[in-house]
């Protein structure tokens, strides 16, 4: 069963074969490495760019304006912070030209903690991305969603951010969540599409025949039904929320867990319906907590559903510190972990005025 990196690779293969993607580029994206996380191994349209994020974003915009669907990778989102002005411009090409131009590019970048990446390989990008108008923003938590969301981003005529949770890169599809057409056996798939170690110059991948599966942008997925409280999350923290919910069910805490999947546009109808039902909202993400996208969701919730709330809506997010420290204890204390999530769910479920 495919893991997220393999799912991304297969989606990129489908995109370059059937959806006219002309360029998949960035630092170490092309041969021999095929990406810092191997997401771009064995593809035809990949190439290695100079070590220059401004050039990468600029070239992505230029290619898009010239009608070339492209996927530009920023090796870690931590290294996109010198390009925010260019990203803003990419997001306003259509608007500032009053509808004359559009900019079909996809910026793909790994986000978040979970690999002991220390101060500069653990940043989140959800707050920054949602504050840049003009982008569609996807952040999958399963390989299948990664496959389907990436394809949706690529064929979209607008600029898109495709944010890949580092911690979930090697997580495999859950049974029933496979990508149609992929071999069920992990080793078989690996033999087909994972580049061998050592000399790869003669290696050719064998791509399984996977379909055009488009996960719609703007559609959340309810991963667990529940009546006691609503938990909205995405990316690395989503599986932790689902796990906590299962564990707490025994204690009588009946949580509904929503995987937002896309941050803009986001599925407000799904969130609203759930909060109407439960009257309690917990938003979980790992970006630093001050001026955090979760706070937008809470603001919208109180402005539209205030009188239906049975408890104060909560945010569980990253600590407001300059970075995620390297040592185990430091990373654990900086971003939400299973225990803290369970604790927050328990408290919110039990909260009485």
């Amino acid at each position, binding site marked *: 069963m495919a893991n997220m990196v393999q799912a991304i690779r297969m989606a990129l293969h489908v995109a370059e074969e059937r959806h*006219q993607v*002309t*360029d998949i580029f960035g630092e170490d994206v092309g041969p021999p490495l095929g990406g810092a996380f191997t997401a771009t191994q064995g593809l035809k349209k990949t*190439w*290695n760019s*100079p070590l*220059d994020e*401004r*050039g990468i*974003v*600029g*070239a*992505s*915009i*230029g*290619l*898009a*304006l*010239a*009608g*070339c*669907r492209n996927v530009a990778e920023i090796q870690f989102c931590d290294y996109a912070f010198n390009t925010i*002005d*260019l990203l803003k*411009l990419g997001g306003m*090409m*259509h*608007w*500032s*030209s*009053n*509808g*004359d*131009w*559009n*900019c*079909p590019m996809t910026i793909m970048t790994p986000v978040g903690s979970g690999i002991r990446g220390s101060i500069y390989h653990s940043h989140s990008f959800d707050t920054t991305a949602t504050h840049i*108008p*003009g982008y*569609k923003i996807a952040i999958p938590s399963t390989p299948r969603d990664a496959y389907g969301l990436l394809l949706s981003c690529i064929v979209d*005529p*607008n600029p898109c951010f495709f944010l890949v949770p580092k911690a979930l890169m090697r997580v495999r599809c859950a049974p029933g969540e496979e990508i149609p057409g992929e071999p069920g056996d992990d080793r078989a798939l690996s033999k087909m599409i994972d580049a061998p170690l050592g000399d790869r110059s003669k290696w050719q991948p064998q791509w399984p025949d996977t379909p055009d599966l488009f996960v719609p942008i703007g559609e959340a997925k309810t991963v667990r039904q529940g009546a006691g409280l609503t938990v909205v999350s995405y990316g690395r923290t989503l599986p932790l929320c689902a796990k906590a919910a299962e564990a707490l069910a025994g204690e009588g805490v009946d949580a509904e867990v929503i995987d937002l999947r896309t941050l803009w546009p986001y599925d407000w109808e799904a969130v609203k319906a759930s909060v109407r039902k439960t009257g309690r909202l917990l938003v979980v993400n790992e970006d630093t907590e001050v001026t955090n996208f979760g706070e937008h969701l809470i603001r919208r919730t109180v402005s539209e559903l205030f009188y239906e709330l049975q408890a104060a809506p909560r945010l569980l997010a990253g600590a407001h510190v300059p970075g995620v420290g390297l040592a185990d204890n430091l990373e654990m204390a900086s971003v939400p972990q299973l225990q803290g999530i369970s604790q927050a769910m328990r408290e919110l479920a039990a909260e009485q005025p």
Partner: protein
Amino acid sequence: MSTQLSPVPNVAPDGELSTELLKRMHELMVKSRVLEERLIQMYKQGDGYFWIGGPGEEAFNVPLGLLIQKGQGVQFDYCHFHYRNSGTLLAMGADPIDALRQMKNTASDPYSGGRNFCGHYSLRKWNVVPVSSPIEVQYSMAPGTALAQKRAGGTGITIVTGGDAGTAEGDFATCLVWCSRPANPLPLLMIVTNNKWGISTSADGQHGEKNVSDRGKAFGIRCKTIDGNDPEVSYREIAAAMEYVRTERKPFLLEAVLSRLYGHSSASGANRALDEADCLVGFEKKLEQRKLLDRKAADELRAHYTQELQEAHRRVHVEPQPDGKTIYDHIFSTKDLVRGEG
């Protein structure tokens, strides 16, 4: 979608320019000077909030516009301009009234619908990508369109323009690095219009380079610094540089030294600078000496365009402003316009 390919004039650097071409250039220089004067007047009359433009750069910008392969798509030239290229747009065939519309930010402004400053052109049908205020970012985007053109083949090239002070931004270096990669050199004409100023800051104290164009040398990029106040020199040098880029599919860095005739922008008063050479005066003197122009004809030409733009101003003055509700229009596109949808 496609437009006629304008012939690429093949002029040797010392070649003579035809009388017809000289006259065409002169007329366009007058026209764009008058346009800028009108825009400044509009600003001073309160018919617009901000003026910025290219008076003093006509001798370079007009030939540039005449030499551009104008059209839509990779077989034509992509233009990544900054805010001083009005003369280029006129030479490409733009109607000056549209510049007035952007100045007055009317709903009818074809470049931004009243959203952006004057001089911030954008025209997909001619590959003019949206001009944006942040200095130098166009140099980071230009390699993208050039990449597409390199792959497509043909003679289409990417042209990027900007000022001298802006070359201090990293984006200028990004363009040098990306267009000269041995793995894939790009058909990119990098232009720097050096007016020796960045707003109030003189170039003297800021540039260790003798010529800005010297920065191309380390990358093996062909480069040259020319007198941008002379339209004949400009025409020949731009033509030669373009010829190289179109056929060799390699980059060229062209620096044009020229004048800033009305200061930086309306923020600095938009008053006539008396210590700067006026390319139009100089060119007219030459044409008169060569008996290709007489004062009377020149005055009539100027009067003609002054009149034309006065009328245009009157028309624009009464055109409606965009409605506040339209701010939400065109945030997302439903069509892939650049890929031929609609």
